[in-house]
C-alpha cells in the first residue's frame, strides 16, 4: 500500500506540474513576445499583462499544488525515487499535453528528444 500511495502522489505531482507548464505556455503565447512588449510599452506593461492573465494565475495554483505534493511525497518516500520519477515523467506528459492542448507539432525529432531526456534524467538522479 505504501508503494501505491507514493505512486499516486507521483502521478498527482506529474499531472499538476504538466498542467502548470501548459497553462504557463498558453499564457505567454497569448501575451506574445515579451521582449517586444517591453520595448513598446515598458516593463510595467509586461508585468501587468502576465500577473493579470487568468492562465498564468491558474498555472501558479497548479505549480503550488505540485510543490506541496512533492513535499508530501518526500515525507513518504526517498528523494532518489520521487525526484527522478516526477522529473523524467513530466517530459513525456508535457509532450502529450503540448500536442493535445497547445497544438504544438510534436514530430519524431521532439519525441526522440523528450524520451532521451526522460531516460537521461531518470539515470542521472537515480
Amino acid at each position, binding site marked *: 500500500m505504501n508503494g501505491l500511495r507514493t505512486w499516486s502522489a507521483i502521478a498527482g505531482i506529474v499531472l499538476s506540474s504538466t498542467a502548470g*507548464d*501548459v497553462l*504557463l*505556455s498558453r499564457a*505567454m*503565447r497569448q*501575451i*506574445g*513576445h*515579451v*521582449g517586444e512588449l517591453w520595448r513598446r510599452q515598458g516593463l510595467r506593461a509586461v508585468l501587468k499583462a*502576465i500577473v493579470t492573465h487568468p492562465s498564468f494565475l491558474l498555472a501558479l495554483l497548479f505549480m503550488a499544488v505540485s510543490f506541496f505534493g512533492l513535499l508530501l511525497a518526500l*515525507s513518504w518516500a526517498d528523494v532518489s525515487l520521487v525526484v527522478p520519477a516526477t522529473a523524467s515523467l513530466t*517530459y513525456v506528459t*508535457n*509532450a502529450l499535453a*503540448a*500536442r493535445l492542448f*497547445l*497544438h*504544438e*507539432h*510534436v*514530430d519524431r*525529432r*521532439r519525441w*526522440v*528528444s*523528450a*524520451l*532521451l*531526456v526522460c*531516460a*537521461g*534524467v*531518470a*539515470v*542521472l*538522479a*537515480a
Partner: protein
Amino acid sequence: MTPRKYIVLLAIVVFASFGDVSLSHGMKSVGAISATRWTELFAAVLNPWVALGIVLLLGFFAAYLSALSWSDLTYVLPATSLGYVLLALLSVWLLGEKVSLSRWIGILLVSSGVGIVTRGPSVTHRHQPELESAGDKR
C-alpha cells in the same frame, strides 16, 4: 533563433542550476527542519545562500516566461534540460561530489536529447501563423 534567444535559454539553465546549488548549500547549513517546527522554514529564507538561491530562481522564472512567449513548450523544456548536466558538473566542482559511470551515461542521454531538439524549429503550433513566422526570422 537569434543569438539573443540562445542567451535567454542559457540564462534559464544557468539561473536554475546555480539557484538550486545555492538553495541546497544554504539548507545544508540551516540543517533539517522537523515537521513540528515548520515555521523555521520562514527563518531559513534569511540565510544568505537561501536568499541568493531565491533571487537566482526568480531570474530563472523571468527567463523561462520570456522563452515561452516565443517558443514551444516542447522546445523549451528539452533545450533547457542541459541544466541537469550543469548541475551534475557543479556538484563535482563546487560541492565536491563524485560522479559515477551511470551519471555520465545520464549526462550523455540528456545532452543528445538537447542536441536533437535544438536542431529543429523552435515554434510549430498551427493556430497562430504570425507567431510561426516570427519564430525563426528574428
